[in-house]
């Protein structure tokens, strides 16, 4: 008389006459059906000494064998699979079960890493950040020292790398910088114009845009574009070179990675950024001029005349002086993050993102510092 304690299932039959329980396995037990098999086995309870009959079992793979053995382990009345009588299994199936039984003894499921509290995370991030700043300062010192070395021994300068970087960071950036600063010029003029129109002070928009663009907007916007463009490129290039051990190869050949990789990029950016800021100045004033006519009735001739009066060269110079400082920050951050990236693919991506964020924050902080400085010096 069959008294099954689990629902009828295509995978096995349970026969529980007292003292001689039999679990008959049926069909093909494979990974593809494992979820159903596992569900069917849940709650199965077999007495010790029960027989497991595999004669109707066509195939069992090791994953299914694992699930079976685990279910039997869970079966409350027996603590050890040896307590059961295994019968009727084909040679292959018996071998699979044996192999899994051996591994089960040594196989322990992986332990999940402990979860950290939010406060501990904040602490950890702060420590990481201070380590980062420390490292950047260190690297800046090394770079400046290397530049000093160049002054003493100018022949060490790698002109080929320098010109390649000048082309990539400077020349190739001109189109995007021109476009963005042109549009910035248009936008600022429009904003200032809206207010100036009320008081009939249309012509003074030229003052506002001229001083604002050359002192602040052009340098900062251009620096941010360059941070995203070249800063990220430096980190990605140098980071990938670290992955492929190219930097190690450079060192092993007796060359200085600083001289070959870092200095050309730093110097190129410090030369290129002022030039790009100048391009930005011109293009933003051009954009201003384009919209001043239709919106405010300021003809190009009137615009240029007012500009000559209102825009003192000192404003342009202030903007141009900021540029190499921004460039140094962006280049040092970019190259250092690249040179210190961890040796796996995920780390390069993370480092590149971090470079862009750090560079932009650094540029804004330096700009604020300049504002205070210029205020104090009354320039």
């Amino acid at each position, binding site marked *: 008389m069959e008294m099954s304690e689990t629902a009828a299932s295509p995978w096995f039959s349970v026969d529980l006459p007292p003292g001689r329980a039999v679990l008959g396995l049926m069909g093909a037990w494979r990974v593809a059906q494992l979820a159903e098999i596992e569900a069917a086995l849940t709650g199965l309870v077999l007495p010790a000494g029960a027989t497991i009959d595999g004669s109707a079992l066509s195939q069992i793979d090791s994953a299914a064998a694992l699930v079976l053995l685990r279910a039997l382990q869970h079966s409350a009345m027996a603590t050890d699979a040896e307590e059961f009588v295994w019968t009727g299994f084909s040679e292959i199936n018996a071998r699979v079960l044996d*192999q899994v039984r051996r591994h089960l003894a040594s196989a322990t*499921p*992986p332990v999940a890493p402990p979860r950290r509290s939010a406060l501990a995370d904040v602490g950890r991030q702060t420590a990481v950040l201070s380590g980062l700043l420390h490292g950047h300062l260190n690297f800046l010192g090394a770079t400046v020292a290397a530049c000093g070395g160049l002054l003493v021994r100018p022949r060490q300068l790698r002109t080929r790398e320098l010109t390649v970087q000048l082309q990539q960071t400077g020349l190739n950036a001109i189109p995007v910088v021109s476009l963005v600063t042109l549009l910035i010029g248009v936008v600022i003029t429009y904003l200032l114009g809206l207010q100036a129109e009320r008081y009939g002070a249309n012509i003074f928009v030229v003052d506002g845009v001229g001083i604002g663009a050359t002192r602040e907007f052009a340098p900062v916007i251009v620096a941010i574009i360059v941070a995203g463009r070249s800063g990220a490129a430096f980190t990605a290039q140098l980071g990938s070179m670290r992955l492929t051990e190219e930097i190690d190869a450079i060192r092993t050949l007796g060359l200085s990675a600083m001289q070959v990789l870092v200095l050309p990029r730093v110097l190129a950016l410090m030369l290129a950024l002022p030039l790009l800021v100048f391009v930005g100045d011109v293009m933003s004033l051009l954009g201003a001029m384009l919209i001043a006519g239709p919106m405010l009735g300021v003809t190009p001739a009137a615009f240029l005349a007012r500009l000559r009066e209102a825009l003192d060269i000192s404003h342009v110079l202030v903007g141009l002086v900021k540029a190499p400082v921004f460039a140094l920050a962006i280049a040092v951050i970019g190259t250092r993050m690249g040179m210190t990236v*961890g040796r*796996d693919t995920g780390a390069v991506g993370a480092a590149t993102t971090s470079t862009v964020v750090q560079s932009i924050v650094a540029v804004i902080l330096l700009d604020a510092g300049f504002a205070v400085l210029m205020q104090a010096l009354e320039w």
Partner: protein
Amino acid sequence: MVSAVAAAAPVVDVRDIVTRFGATTVHDGVSFSVGRGTLVGLIGTSGTGKSVLLREMIGLHRPTAGRVTLLGTDIWQAQAAELDAVRRRFGMMFQDGALFSSLTVAQNVAVPLREHTRLAPATVDALVALRLAQAGLPAEAAARRPSELSGGMRKRAAVARAIALEPELLFLDEPTSGLDPITARGFDRLVRSLVDDLGITVLMATHDLDTLLTVVDRVIVLARGRVLADGGVSEVMAVDDEWVQRYFSVRTMTQGDAGHGS
């Protein structure tokens, strides 16, 4: 029930593969088949396109012409759903493991299980532990990242991931390259046990003479764009071709030189 017909049909059937890159012809009519439950070695000098052929067989690179049939499915003619279904039935071990670098070893092995099955997390964990044990990895390796493992352990982790879904077919790309002799022989034993204990059919591209001479059932020799020889190890070793003779005689050559030197 595995029918007698299905058991006799070849697991891998490659017919008239032609591969051209621009003006260079790498394969010019490569044909062979692999029977169930065998361990086959694919050999050929560097540049004969072993890796390219493997990539064509697993659906990563379309051959210029020819047909690849895996487990009854024509890889290059199948619909996406069919191809997906067959991908769950074979595994691939790439040359340097190709483990996901942002995941731990255990998470790597769990990827196919989580994506293609609906098993409970506890069962997935237990199955991962089983695969790691089957691949010969110590339990401590489970929580490590791939970058923290040695080359040999990375390859074992890659095998563990490749057999996660208990495939019927396994491809290995130069599994013992870069391994010291002891680790390499251990790896050979692992692969042999996969064939013997789990009934997996294995096709491996290899340079390793010791692997060929110890654990492989059949050898396929790829040379000059075609299959030069295809048969048991001793059969292939007896083939009358200069390249094959030199390939297998390297071992005796170096021993002979040592004898002369001493």
